[in-house]
């Protein structure tokens, strides 16, 4: 009870005083960005981290629309791609004319490109929210993607346009040839962009974005034009998408039609949704997961897009708040110290769940091997254990793992639900609510 009363704020302390946890979280985030490449020193991991950084900025910019303003866009890659193309043209111009602009400023070119196109396109497309907005974004995405193949002088056709980032003036002796230097350039912009986008959510405009998301009708009766709120939100999203696109152009030293296509627009939706739209950091988690999946899965299986789809459907159905919500659900339990009450149930559930997942993977791989007509010769490696795709014993294993795993997993997850309720109840008794 004392907890309850001490937590009830009085109007005088109404300013949500930023607590230590808030600053600690940001400090930890910056520390991770800075230290990660020093811990994992291989060139491959530096490439991976660079891609994650780009994807994180892109997904955060997407969440300005989806999570903050409630706008579902199927064409956000337009602003990413145009940012990338303008950055490449900018870099080539800087190199050709010997302009004194070092590489770290190039993302601003991409940002302003994204902003300008959002300013032009957004006014019409944000007139309405919901289905209308989604359809317009899809249409504009197709329009820009197809014109990128027509306007060859600007977009370079199928091949795209290349550039060389080391042709730009060096900064403090960095010429950005080595991947680690590019990584730190991306990391720098990730930190700046993340702070800026977070700050945006704490402004009057950012708060009204949430209001427009929740109830655009009522917003009109407290003095705001929801169209203007959506439009401004759209412009900011375009700006940060452009920065991400420019960073991609710097990283790959090329911009091509794939940058602004539907696949790219789909991936950012994936990443943002899987990470979780209702927490600011959700899209960052999503960017990590989706980038890793893209890189790793394509190495180990030919049908990696199928797994992508399954994961996405699984999240939509069972955890619509994404990874971030799954994690944040536990916050009251951690605060109340009742988390240990559910850990045993988790440990029990995890075993059959993994077995079930293995069964599903085996089944998919067997079917893939048969549909590709090479079942007789193909071996599926699961945790380094070889399975012959054509061997009936493998089919049996797949069936047993899938069906048995599912039945047992379902039982154990009921146990998790029960343990969850007990832990939550105990947390409430100690005065901590969700």
């Amino acid at each position, binding site marked *: 009870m004392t907890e309850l009363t001490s937590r009830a704020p009085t109007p005088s302390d109404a300013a949500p005083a930023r607590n230590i946890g808030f600053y600690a979280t940001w400090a930890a985030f910056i520390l991770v960005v800075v230290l990660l490449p020093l811990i994992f020193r291989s060139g491959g991991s530096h490439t991976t981290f660079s891609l994650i950084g780009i994807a994180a900025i892109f997904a955060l910019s997407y969440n300005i629309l989806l999570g903050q303003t409630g706008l579902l866009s199927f064409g956000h890659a337009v602003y990413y791609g145009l940012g990338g193309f303008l950055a490449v043209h900018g870099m080539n111009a800087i190199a050709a004319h010997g302009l004194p602009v070092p590489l770290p400023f190039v993302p601003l070119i991409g940002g302003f490109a994204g902003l300008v196109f959002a300013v032009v396109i957004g006014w019409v497309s944000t007139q309405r929210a919901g289905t209308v907005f989604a359809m317009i974004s899809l249409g504009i995405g197709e329009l820009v993607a197809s014109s990128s193949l027509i306007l060859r002088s600007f977009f370079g056709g199928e091949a795209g346009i290349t550039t060389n980032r080391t042709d730009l003036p060096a900064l403090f002796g960095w010429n950005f040839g080595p991947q680690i230097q590019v990584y730190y350039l991306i990391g720098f912009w990730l930190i700046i962009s993340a702070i800026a986008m977070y700050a945006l959510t704490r402004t009057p405009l950012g708060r009204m974005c949430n209001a427009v998301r929740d109830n655009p009708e009522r917003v*009109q009766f407290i003095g705001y034009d929801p169209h203007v709120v959506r439009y401004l939100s759209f412009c900011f999203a375009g700006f940060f998408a452009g920065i991400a696109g420019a960073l991609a152009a710097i990283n790959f030293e090329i911009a091509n039609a794939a940058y602004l296509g539907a696949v790219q627009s789909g991936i950012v939706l994936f990443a943002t949704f899987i990470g979780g739209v209702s927490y600011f950091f959700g899209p960052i988690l999503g960017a990590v997961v989706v980038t890793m999946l893209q890189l790793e899965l394509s190495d180990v299986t030919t049908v990696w897009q199928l797994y992508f789809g399954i994961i996405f459907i699984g999240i939509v159905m069972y955890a619509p708040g994404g990874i971030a919500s799954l994690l944040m659900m536990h916050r009251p339990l951690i605060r109340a110290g009742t988390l240990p009450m559910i850990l045993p149930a988790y440990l029990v559930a995890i075993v059959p769940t993994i077995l079930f997942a293995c069964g599903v993977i085996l089944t998919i791989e067997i079917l893939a091997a048969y549909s590709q007509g090479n079942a007789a010769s193909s071996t599926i490696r699961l945790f380094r254990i070889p399975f012959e795709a054509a061997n009936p014993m493998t089919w049996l294993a797949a069936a047993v793992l899938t069906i048995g795993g599912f039945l047992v997993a379902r039982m154990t997850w009921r146990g998790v639900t029960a343990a969850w309720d007990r832990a939550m109840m105990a947390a409430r008794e100690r005065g901590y609510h969700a």
Partner: protein
Amino acid sequence: MTNAIEMRAVEKSFGNVRIIQDLNLTVAKGERHAIIGPNGAGKSTTFNLISGHITPTSGEIDLNGERISGLRPFEINRRGLSRSFQVTNVFAKMTVWENIRCAVLWATGHRYAFWKNVDSLPEVRRRTAEILEDIHLTHRRDVPAGLLTYAEQRELEIGITIAGGASVIMLDEPTAGMSNTETDRAVALIRRLTEGRTLVIVEHDMSVVFGLADRISVLVYGNIIASGTPEEIRGNPKVKEAYLGEEEH
């Protein structure tokens, strides 16, 4: 002196059904004006017309002597008119505090600002805290609006409506669905919060109407059949026949 609201010969048709016909209504500044009438008479539609939610098919509406018919709802709101909704219409996923704060932002001049931290605007914070005190929801400030009890949501609805400091407040059945004690509390609240402002209220509870209103207009089939002080309305035979009579059966 100009009137707060003046409606002249306003008509509204949905398709070929005329819901509002030749509606004339005058609300003086500072007056508490109740609109009563049977279900489906067009009271909420009248609110929608005045607040810009829908535009009249014909006729004129003035706010403080200025033409507002044809303006968008937010333009009318910025000119000093604020309305509540018969069906609770709040920001369900946002906290009580945020609901009120959003309603304060435009009026305190912060508009679409994206360069100010909303938490460090003292005027906004002070006004939000004041309104929360007024509507007795301070202890619920961090609760998402969708999780409030029905009566609390109705109070929040009133809070959002008055938060911007509009000079003309329109409340559409603010006490509908409340228990007697809740109604008494809400009426006291409305009386206090609209002190010195113009109030237009739609209300079915006759004790509330006759206790609160300076003037009453009776709306039947989209037309005002009588408008006057509570005594005049009570004694009006047309009203007795069309409306009050029904109630007494």
